């Protein structure tokens, strides 16, 4: 029922697969309003995460998340590296050394992740960043957890809300990140980081539900 270290590993592997699969889509989103590297950055980072997980064997969900964080920080670079890295670092801290995570713990981890991103990037909702995907995801995860759902459903709720949040970035004028340099011209395009957040959460949810 709960989410073990093995489950988190499986979720990260699924995340690695999804960002690799959507590498070109993320590059294209970033090409239009950024610098065309988000897909490459995410694929490089998660490829490294998957490789690292194969060689080490962290024993708690928190340890897996922390390993993921440090690998992302040292392989991604760009804006997304420290932001996602911090998100996973804070998520790891939030779950402590519990051997299994229930729905509420997962929801808390997602929330800690958002707080990490905001602490580092200082973006607000509506700035057209991954915060616009994570914020509704946190809300949805919390609601699902409060309704007593387990990790799979909590993540599924988060993923769906994140995707809606990502799509909602389309009309926005960016105020943070590279797209902000375009001013009004940034409107009309989905933020690549918001999209990758939705993709990751959706892969995590599928992996969690697929047991």
């Amino acid at each position, binding site marked *: 029922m709960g989410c073990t270290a093995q489950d988190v590993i499986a979720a990260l592997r699924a995340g690695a697969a999804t960002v690799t699969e959507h590498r070109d889509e993320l590059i294209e989103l970033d*090409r239009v309003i*950024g*610098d065309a*590297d988000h897909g490459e950055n995410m694929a490089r980072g998660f490829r490294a995460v998957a490789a690292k997980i194969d060689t080490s064997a962290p024993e708690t969900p928190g340890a897996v998340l922390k390993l993921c964080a440090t690998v992302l920080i040292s392989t991604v*670079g760009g804006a997304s*590296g*420290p932001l996602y890295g911090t998100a996973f670092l804070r998520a790891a801290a939030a779950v402590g050394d519990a051997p299994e995570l229930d729905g509420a713990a997962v929801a808390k981890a997602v929330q800690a992740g958002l707080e990490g991103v905001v602490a580092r990037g200082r973006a607000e909702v509506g700035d057209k960043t991954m915060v616009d995907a994570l914020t509704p995801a946190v809300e949805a995860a919390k609601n699902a957890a409060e309704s007593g759902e387990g990790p799979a459903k909590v993540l599924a709720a988060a993923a769906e809300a994140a995707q809606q949040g990502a799509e909602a970035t389309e009309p926005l004028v960016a105020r943070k990140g590279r797209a902000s*340099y*375009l001013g009004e011209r940034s409107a009309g395009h989905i933020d690549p980081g918001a999209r990758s957040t939705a993709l990751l959460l959706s892969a995590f949810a599928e992996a969690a539900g697929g047991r």
Partner: protein
Amino acid sequence: MKKIINDPAAVVAQSLQGMAAAHPDVLRVRTDPAVVVRADAPVAGKVAVVSGGGSGHEPLHGGFVGAGMLAAAVPGAVFTSPTPDAVQAAIEETNGGAGVLLVVKNYTGDVLNFETAAELAGLDGVDVRSVIVDDDVAVKDSTHTAGRRGVGGTVLLEKIVGAAAEQGADLDRCEELARRVVSRVRSMGMALTAPTVPHAGQPSFDLADGEMEIGIGIHGEPGRARVPLTSADDIVRQLLEPILEDLPFTSGDEVLLFTNSMGGTPLLELYLAHGIAERLLAERGIRVRRRLVGPYITSLEMQGMSLTLLKLDDELTELWDAPVHTAALHW
């Protein structure tokens, strides 16, 4: 995509190998993580000025490593800021006991990654300071946004502060000088064509014949506006006026004028544009005391140019004139 490369994922590493081979007297390259270090680092008792950022802007920053300028440069993937461990490695390789000054161009990624490295190095007892360069007047400055980009001013800052460090200035003074340069330098750029990021494989934006992007940065992001391609006279005016208004620069000022090619614009055109800028400044009573003309902060093969103006004082001028011995600047 037309490039002289092997595997797109290996471009930066293989390019650094060639750079190391080309300049054995000036620099060495350390790998995993990749750092370009001046040949004689660490230099005991001297402040190490370290910079870095995504690759694709060559000669920035690796070409400025050497005596009188940078102690090290940290190259990320193309257009992707390097990771904190790479910056840490650069700090370790260059710290000669007098501290390290990080020169960071103002991009979210660069700021976050360098910040993290500085924090970690601080924990190890190294005195690390950071200075953020944000000289691009094309971007509206605001506390609610990512703020202005760091562009051409970075080159001038690295030369001037590097000279001070070489002369033995302490970390406080290097930091003060760096902030002084930031406060007195402004830039603006334009593009005729888009660069192609190797791992993306297609141009970063599509620009019709007869169009140009004005207010571009150095990462292939589109600019503030797409406007009809006009004459060189008009282009230079469009770049210069926002720069002059912003600081502002006024009659009687003495400046360094830096006319920069974004990579694909040949010297023939660049000198032509430089001559126009000199004339426009003379008309406004602004005296050009020093100049730099060439491709120094580029965006891969992008055609286009930027202008950078630094308000000089005697001290900055002397530091600009001080000897420098790097791959790209040498006097």
